[in-house]
């Protein structure tokens, strides 16, 4: 369970303070949650709050009752795996298998054992043939799969992915979708791929730092399309009410506006 309680993020810029996120209150208990929104809307900021890469200016964030900031930060980061848009910024080691080994350093102290476990993980994912390849020689799709595996190697409970398929072609995107769909972990994803977004359990739409829609993906996509077209969102409340589905709604979710996930 991930909770945001009246969270705001403000940064200083040469032209004055800028609010990246304001008054965000939401509880995420569903297994698969997608975040939609334009570039610069605050999606990444929301995701980065979950593992403490961004600190809130106001409000509280909790991940399974732990705060991602301060003393509990390390514990939260062990629970939350983060997948970046560009896998190259995430892969720190020269070869694929070495990068998986880097993830395993905390868990396995013996080097030979660590190497064997890393190879076994890569084999499980059908990436064994890439083990000794330089991370620069891998294709974009292979790199993102290795990056995801290096995150999964530390056995996190939550996976956060910031536009993980933006740099991938269709085939590799699909491969990554399948991999993510097969996981037991809670998954929070930001994406511009609306077809993929439809497959999630719940969708949030962020616009100009604010949560403007929270509900079923189909209705959320509709809302997002209207936003992008610059049309007034007449359909907001209709769509939200159509999306009311008591079974999939979490009983303790916060509802403080007409566009919020219903109680």
């Amino acid at each position, binding site marked *: 369970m991930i909770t945001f309680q009246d969270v705001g993020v403000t940064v200083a810029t040469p032209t004055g303070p800028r609010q990246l996120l304001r008054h965000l209150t939401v509880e995420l208990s569903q297994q698969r949650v997608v975040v939609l929104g334009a570039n610069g809307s605050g999606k990444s900021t929301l995701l980065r709050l979950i*593992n*403490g*890469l961004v600190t809130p200016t106001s409000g509280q964030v909790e991940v399974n009752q732990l705060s991602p900031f301060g003393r509990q*930060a*390390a514990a939260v*980061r*062990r629970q939350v*795996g*983060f997948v*970046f848009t*560009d896998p*190259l*910024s*995430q892969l*720190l*080691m*020269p*070869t694929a298998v*070495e990068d998986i*080994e*880097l*993830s395993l*350093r*905390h868990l396995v102290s013996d*080097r030979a054992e*660590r*190497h064997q476990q890393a190879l076994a993980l890569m084999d499980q994912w059908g990436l064994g043939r890439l083990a*000794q390849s*330089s*991370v*620069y020689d891998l294709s974009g799709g292979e790199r993102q799969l290795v990056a995801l595996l*290096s*995150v999964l190697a*530390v056995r996190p409970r939550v996976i956060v992915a910031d536009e993980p398929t933006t740099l991938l072609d269709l085939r590799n995107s699909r491969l990554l979708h399948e991999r993510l769909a097969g996981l037991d972990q809670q998954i929070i994803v930001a994406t511009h791929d609306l077809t993929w977004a439809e497959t999630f359990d719940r969708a949030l739409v962020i616009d100009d730092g604010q949560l403007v829609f929270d509900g079923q993906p189909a209705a959320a996509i509709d809302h997002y399309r209207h936003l992008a077209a610059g049309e007034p969102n007449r359909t907001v409340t209709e769509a939200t009410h159509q999306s009311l589905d008591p079974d999939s709604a979490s009983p303790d979710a916060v509802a403080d506006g007409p566009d919020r996930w219903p109680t």
Partner: protein
Amino acid sequence: MTPGAAAERVFGSYQPMGSALESWPVGCKYVALLAVALPAFVVRQWPVTLAGLVLTVILLLSARLGWRRGLGVAPGFLILLAVVWGVNAWSNSWLAGAVIVGNLTLALWASRLVVMTTPAPVLIDALVGLTRPLARWGFRPERFGLAVLIMVRSIPYLAGAFATIREAVRARGLRGRLGAQATQVVIRAVGYAQATGDAMTARGLGD
């Protein structure tokens, strides 16, 4: 060439080739590196430099790295060498320039004796092990090992960034104003440092 590929070209990276040098303990490789490279830097006479170069080439080829992977250098490095030689030939003598250029090449190739024959985790473990006695004074060996690795990963990235920006300037038909390009490289360097820091934090490294 992407910045990453540039990183490959400068230091090279480990691929298992099944050579004898690979199976040496990493400590011995470090000693070998110092043995072939250090005398040339201390003595600064051409016969010593030449001997170091010959020895290093023999060792690199015996590690089955091949001519291209083992001895190839990035074009940027060649330009640097040419400039260094030119400046020294003009201010001192062409032989003095040759010794400096030879020593720089020797240092690069000798570093490959370790980097290209040893998996990165082994290199980190060696550094961590070496600095472990300092832990009692608050030194953090794990962090040190990681920091050195990130440094090695970063230098060629920045060299590559410079090349990328030069291409971008040319692609737009602009003439290179070195100051403006340098600013772009610094901006990229900061962005790269932030991305690397974020990735390390997100992966719980250094916690």
